[in-house]
């Protein structure tokens, strides 16, 4: 019997169901994570879009922050979108809000403006081939500074909006709000590497 890959999706607040649908359609089992026990035995973790201050506070209140940091340090692939990117950043411009601080990046919140400035655009993404990715930016952040070990995968003008550091992937936009699964597939490549390293036998079915 094939055991499907198990991806945890942080489900404290925000658009976690859209990630769940996308990952299920890609052959994964999606687990909603609200408490530490939900983190046991997952092969990857998604930090969804939502309000980063809300999610950060709830992560602390329900003791998820340290546990997720340990798992990510241990190589667990983590994929953050929008609020997820902010929570994964080590530094956030003008903010001391709670965060995971996993990635060597500086995030700038609401950096494209308020909701009336939100937009969608076609993005050239490294590793996704010639077809552009329709990216939806909602009160989006961008990555102001990329430090050692971080690869830039996509930018809007000179603003970095998709970056990767070892097992960590962060997007300023919302691939889960489109039908295009290519960015999620990039994340699942990391998951496959992680499973191979851990010698776990699970498959994307």
């Amino acid at each position: 019997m094939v055991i499907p890959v198990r991806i945890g999706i942080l489900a404290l607040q925000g658009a976690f169901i859209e990630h769940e649908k996308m990952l299920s359609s890609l052959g994964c089992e999606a687990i909603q994570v609200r408490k530490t026990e939900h983190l046991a035995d997952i092969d990857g973790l998604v930090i969804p879009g939502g309000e980063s201050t809300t999610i950060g506070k709830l992560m602390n209140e329900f003791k998820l922050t340290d546990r997720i940091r340990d798992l990510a340090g241990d190589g667990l692939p983590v994929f953050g979108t929008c609020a997820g990117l902010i929570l994964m950043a080590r530094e956030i411009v003008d903010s001391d809000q709670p965060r995971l601080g996993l990635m060597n990046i500086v995030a700038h919140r609401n950096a494209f403006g308020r909701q009336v400035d939100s937009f969608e655009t076609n993005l050239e993404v490294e590793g996704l081939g010639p077809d552009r990715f329709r990216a939806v930016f909602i009160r989006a952040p961008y990555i102001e500074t990329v430090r050692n070990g971080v690869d830039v995968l996509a930018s809007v003008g000179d603003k970095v909006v998709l970056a990767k550091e070892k097992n960590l992937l962060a997007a300023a936009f919302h691939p889960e709000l489109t039908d295009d699964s290519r960015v999620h597939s990039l994340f699942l490549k990391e998951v496959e590497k992680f499973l191979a390293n851990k010698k776990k036998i699970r498959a994307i079915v």
Partner: protein
Amino acid sequence: MTEQGTWRVKKGLAEMLKGGVIMDVTTPEQAKIAEEAGACAVMALERVPADIRAAGGVARMADPTVILKIMDAVTIPVMAKCRIGHFVEAQILEALGADYIDESEVLTPADENFHVDKNSFKVPFVCGARNLGEALRRIREGAAMIRTKGEPGTGDVVEAVRHMRMVMGEIRRLQNLPREEMMTAAKEMGAPYDLVLEVAELGRLPVVNFAAGGIATPADAAMMMQLGCDGIFVGSGIFKSGDPARRAKAIVAATTHYNDSKILAEVSRDLGEPMVGINISTLADIDRMQERGW
């Protein structure tokens, strides 16, 4: 091609608010308390619904200064209310940079026949509804988010429950109808035919659906979530209670863990005095805000 104000971008912000609590605030200080407690957005107002009710008279859009000060005080999205049908108040709110406009029955309606044409705005709108037909009419006008009307400013959850059960029940009914009965269903509820078909297919509204109007406790919030809504508006329930910061935080936790009765029991403890409230059955017909709009 880069586009702004698309349906996906408007609806998308509501998707990001799901599982969260949107709190009514009247000052920058209250806005900070709400943000600190974990609100996913705030509604900037001059008065909360309970005070609007008490004051009587005509209730209008808030002074832009109040809204701008609240926008300055917090980093989370800031919503603001315009009167039903008052498209110029809506234009002003869009110019101020409000992140969402609530075309709201809490304020005195400006037009007794027509709601705002929300499709012509770049900023997204949320509207109240008591049943599926009303929700679908608002969506076709351009509302990118729906909430129950409930009965604002009462602290009595009974009307929000009635409206949520009504919408959910009507959706379940549509799902069981054969295709040839859909047009008659659309006609009876006064809803656009294409949206009726879409709802029957999806088994839910095509936009995010929040609960509002009378929610005052963590248990109220969790009950609405268990009834199937996507998130919670709390109006007077927080800042008309004895310990707003503590109650706000508890309602946020209850909205996340709405299915976990142990956590609900824990966060419901020692919250101080809830808002006093008004029992709906003692409210005169003329004082019922939910009858505003159609």
